[in-house]
């Protein structure tokens, strides 16, 4: 990077900031001149080093009392600070064991905390990458009784946009599709999201190349025209690199997406992500954003398909918008009663709060947990310093008698812990860097805005803040004690000082208590995770491969033939035992489908309708997935050709509605799928299989494929043996039927695992923090006990001389250690109960004060404490009476 021929910018800025206004220009001019001369004679590097020194001196003067005081006494301060640091380093070198242990301990604590904070900062605290993100809101609808948020219908979107007084502008997008883009030679599957033309204007996101959409991009093409002009699309930077080799002439290129011609009009800036709440179901990093070209007001008022984002007018708050939308909802009920059987309510929330909502709890819990680890680390270091302090009592006494004031001693001691903390922070930052790199590599599913997670300035500032805090936490107590000793204890330089011992005991008790808290947290999560994994899936994901493709609309007959052909082709692949087609794929993590049902006797009652998932499946789907047929029959190819509505229920729905009666032959009214309300005859009952994730308990209705035209189909196939070895043949067979099918096969097991990803992420980190805490407090306990054994050599030796047996002494020390641990465990239990309550939302089928977990954590801590005490205890038994007495 080339720079102008003068001192580095940060130096000039630092010097300028810290110099009186009248002198600034002259000082900067001198600075540049000298820099140039030095650069010429000694080279740039030397000149920069000199300039850096100047900046630090200027900042130091400034910090020491501002410009006015510069020049008086700051030299001495500087000198004394340098001496303190030099002395601290000498101390560290003279006792490398203590120093290294303290630095490593703090590095672990600071590293873990910094890494966690970088995630909290990136995901929760960084503003969304949009213009004035606080003014952005999300608008959704809810239906009486249903908790699933839904989107906005086209006509409602248009009405709202034209009438709203609180929302200046509304933009939206509809469901993302994955489909083939046919370029010159190879088809590629790209993620396309149709958006309203004003989306990027509303967000305030500018394109890196080309242009944003304009209103003309959204003019519906007339149906009669023989040649329809291409649709306008803006592509992502990544897609531009991947598929167009960063071609600078990409603007104006026409590609065929879905067989429709699409013109690329713009390229988004690098790293653009449409960070919106997960409910909106849009992948943040799609390939193509296409301007919708339909008249939204002509859509059905019942099809609530538009994911809607609004920007508040100046001065309007989310609260205002909420009130207005309540009015809008009641007006709508009045104006369109026939469209409002479900009594729709429009709701709005700020985009910023809701974007990170699902992770918020998890992340704050993690940050709290890692903060506890850091506290344990600090307690450990404080302990080390206290122990070492005892040795330095005489040194302090001498210093004090030579006239060093208490403040001076305090300053020196705090400088020492400051040096340790700074070195620890340096190690911590390195560790955090490692952690963040690792996180980027793992890319946990569900963690939005991962790109924003970086060790940037605020995060580094936080690390420095941690270092300062640790200095105070770990250094203050030892320093205060020591400096007091220096003044009071001038003569008594030997023997045990009880206040000292007490503070170390308190620290160890605190460490043990904190580790109990963390272990309780980790234990609760482990239990809850294993509960989740024990949840019956209803299907057997092992040995099942899936592949999903978006479908263009085909006439019904053609669709049936096409799907039959697909299944046929897959079933012919050697190794395939069974194959089927489904929409939507269970646990796909992106979307689900719901409809409402009722029974004959409740048909007329508007409140008698219940929401359930629905899924359309081909014959053999149940067999392929390993879903057991409990009653009645599976679908047959004949069902696909008849118009008689039939349905297969899962056992949960059957139990809920038919309560012991055999549902086969009964009828179910269903509405909200597609077209009219159906009266379907129940032909079978199958095992319950969750639709969304392991916690899902909502029942599902299964229909033959013919009753719903899905925009995607998933082919599932069960293999005998390792599915991976059949993948290529599977993929080839499908693409022989339809070359537009993507080749990325996903094992069903992967979807299942992904749904557990967030819980697993939390679990792994909590376990890690729990182990770290346990290890650190074991080290702490060990340190305190071995120190106390060393201190009591005389006493122990005397006891030996008076006839005490070795084992008796061992037991004494062991009991000492366990006593401390037991007190800590007692206190920790309370903390554990509190943490359990905080964790409640993250738990599944495990009580917040689960006794097994609480007892387990206590036992683990006590056992580890026992082991940590064992070594010092054994040493106590080996004390040689003669040596001990001599030492006295």
């Amino acid at each position, binding site marked *: 990077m080339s720079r102008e021929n003068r001192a580095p910018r940060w130096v000039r800025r630092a*010097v300028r900031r*810290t*110099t*009186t206004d*009248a*002198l600034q*220009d*002259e*000082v900067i*001019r*001198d*600075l540049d*001149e*000298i820099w140039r001369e030095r650069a010429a004679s000694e080279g740039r590097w030397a000149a920069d080093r000199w300039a850096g*020194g*100047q900046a630090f*001196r*200027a900042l*130091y*003067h400034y910090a020491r009392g501002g*410009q*006015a005081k*510069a*020049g*008086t*006494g*700051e*030299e*001495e301060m500087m000198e004394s600070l340098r001496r303190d640091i030099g002395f601290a380093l000498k101390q560290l070198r003279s006792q490398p064991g203590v120093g290294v242990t303290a630095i490593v301990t703090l590095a672990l604590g600071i590293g873990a905390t910094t890494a966690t904070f970088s995630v909290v900062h990136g995901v929760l605290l960084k503003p969304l990458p949009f213009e004035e993100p606080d003014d952005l809101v999300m608008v959704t609808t809810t239906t009486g009784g249903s908790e699933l948020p839904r989107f906005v219908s086209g006509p409602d979107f248009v009405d709202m946009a034209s009438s709203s007084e609180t929302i200046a502008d509304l933009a939206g997008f509809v469901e993302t599709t994955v489909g083939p883009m046919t370029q010159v030679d190879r088809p590629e599957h790209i993620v396309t999201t149709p958006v309203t033309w004003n989306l990027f204007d509303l967000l305030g996101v500018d394109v890196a190349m080309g242009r944003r959409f304009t209103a003309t991009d959204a003019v519906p093409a007339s149906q009669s025209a023989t040649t329809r002009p291409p649709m306008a699309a803006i592509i992502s930077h990544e897609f531009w690199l991947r598929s167009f080799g960063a071609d600078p002439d990409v603007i104006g290129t026409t590609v065929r997406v879905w067989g429709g011609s699409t013109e690329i009009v713009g390229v988004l800036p690098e790293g653009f992500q449409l960070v919106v709440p997960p409910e909106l179901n849009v992948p943040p990093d799609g390939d193509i954003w296409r301007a919708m070209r339909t008249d939204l007001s002509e859509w059905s008022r019942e099809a609530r398909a538009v994911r809607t984002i609004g920007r508040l007018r100046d001065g309007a708050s989310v609260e205002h918008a909420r009130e207005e939308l309540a009015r809008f909802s009641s007006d709508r009920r009045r104006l369109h009663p026939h469209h409002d059987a479900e009594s729709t309510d429009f709701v709005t929330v700020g985009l910023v709060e809701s974007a990170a909502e699902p992770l918020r709890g998890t992340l704050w819990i993690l940050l709290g947990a890692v903060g506890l680890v850091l506290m344990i680390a600090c307690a450990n270091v404080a302990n080390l310093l206290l122990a070492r302090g005892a040795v330095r009592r005489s040194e302090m006494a001498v210093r004090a008698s030579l006239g060093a004031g208490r403040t001076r001693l305090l300053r020196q001691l705090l400088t020492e812990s400051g040096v340790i903390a700074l070195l620890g922070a340096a190690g911590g930052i390195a560790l955090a860097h490692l952690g963040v790199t690792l996180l980027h590599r793992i890319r946990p599913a569900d963690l939005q805005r991962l790109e924003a997670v970086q060790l940037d300035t605020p995060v580094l500032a936080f690390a420095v803040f941690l270092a300062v805090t640790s200095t105070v936490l770990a250094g203050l107590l030892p320093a205060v004690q020591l400096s007091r000793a220096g003044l009071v204890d001038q003569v008594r330089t030997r023997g045990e000082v009880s206040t000292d011992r007490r503070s170390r005991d308190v620290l160890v008790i605190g460490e043990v208590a904190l580790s109990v808290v963390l272990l309780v947290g980790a234990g609760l999560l482990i239990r809850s995770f294993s509960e989740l994994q024990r949840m019956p899936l209803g299907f057997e994901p092992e040995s099942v491969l899936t592949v999903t493709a978006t479908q263009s609309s085909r006439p019904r007959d053609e669709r049936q033939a096409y799907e039959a052909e697909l299944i046929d082709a897959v079933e012919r692949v050697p190794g395939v035992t069974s194959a089927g087609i489904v929409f939507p794929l269970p646990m796909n993590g992106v979307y689900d489908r719901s409809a409402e049902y009722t029974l004959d006797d409740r048909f007329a009652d508007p409140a008698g309708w219940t929401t359930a998932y629905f899924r359309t499946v081909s014959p053999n789907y149940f067999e392929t997935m390993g879903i057991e047929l409990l009653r009645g029959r599976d679908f047959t190819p004949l069902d696909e050709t008849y118009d008689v509505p039939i349905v297969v229920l899962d056992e949960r729905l059957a139990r809920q509605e038919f309560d012991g009666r055999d549902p086969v032959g009964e009828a179910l009214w269903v509405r909200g799928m597609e077209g009219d309300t159906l009266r379907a005859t129940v032909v079978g009952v199958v095992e319950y299989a969750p639709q969304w994730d392991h916690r899902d308990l909502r029942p599902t209705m299964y229909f033959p494929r013919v009753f719903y035209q899905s925009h995607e189909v998933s082919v599932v196939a069960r293999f005998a043996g390792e599915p991976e070895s059949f993948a290529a043949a599977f993929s080839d067979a499908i693409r022989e039927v339809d070359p537009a099918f993507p080749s990325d096969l996903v094992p069903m097991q992967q979807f299942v695992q992904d749904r557990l990803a967030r819980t697993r992420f939390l679990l792994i980190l909590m376990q890690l923090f729990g182990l770290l805490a346990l290890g650190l407090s074991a080290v702490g306990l060990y340190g305190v006990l071995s120190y106390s054994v060393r201190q009591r050599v005389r006493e122990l030796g005397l006891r030996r001389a008076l006839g005490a047996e070795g084992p008796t002494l061992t037991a004494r020390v062991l009991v000492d250690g366990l006593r401390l641990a037991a007190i800590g465990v007692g206190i920790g239990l309370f903390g554990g109960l509190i943490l359990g309550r905080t964790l409640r939302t993250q738990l599944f089928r495990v009580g917040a004060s689960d006794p097994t977990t609480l007892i387990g954590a206590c036992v683990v801590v006590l056992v580890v404490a026992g082991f940590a005490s064992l070594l010092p205890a054994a040493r106590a038994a080996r004390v040689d009476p003669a040596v001990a007495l001599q030492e006295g």
Partner: protein
Amino acid sequence: MVRGKRPGEFEQVVLLTLAGFRSDATGREVYERLTETTGREVSLAAVHITLQRLHEKGWARCHTSAPAASEGGKPRRRYALGPDGARMLGDLREQFDRLWGEASVHPLLADDRG
């Protein structure tokens, strides 16, 4: 002592350095002379600020020179020791000399300073 004010250590050093110039000197010249003779690195900005303060306290004179053609650019402040400053330095020197007459530090200098 003049006006009852005592200079700080750094002020003394800067003023003494300034006294070493035959004619008036710029902040930069003082900075360079100071680092050369004492061998210690100081803050350029602090030298400027201190010179300005010495001027305000009446120990140094200051005038703004027309820019030399070779320098181009803006005028520079130039400083020179004032009579009050000279008197103050003389007084200090006297005090120190008296103290030095009594002091015997040489035996200790053989030891390590620490």
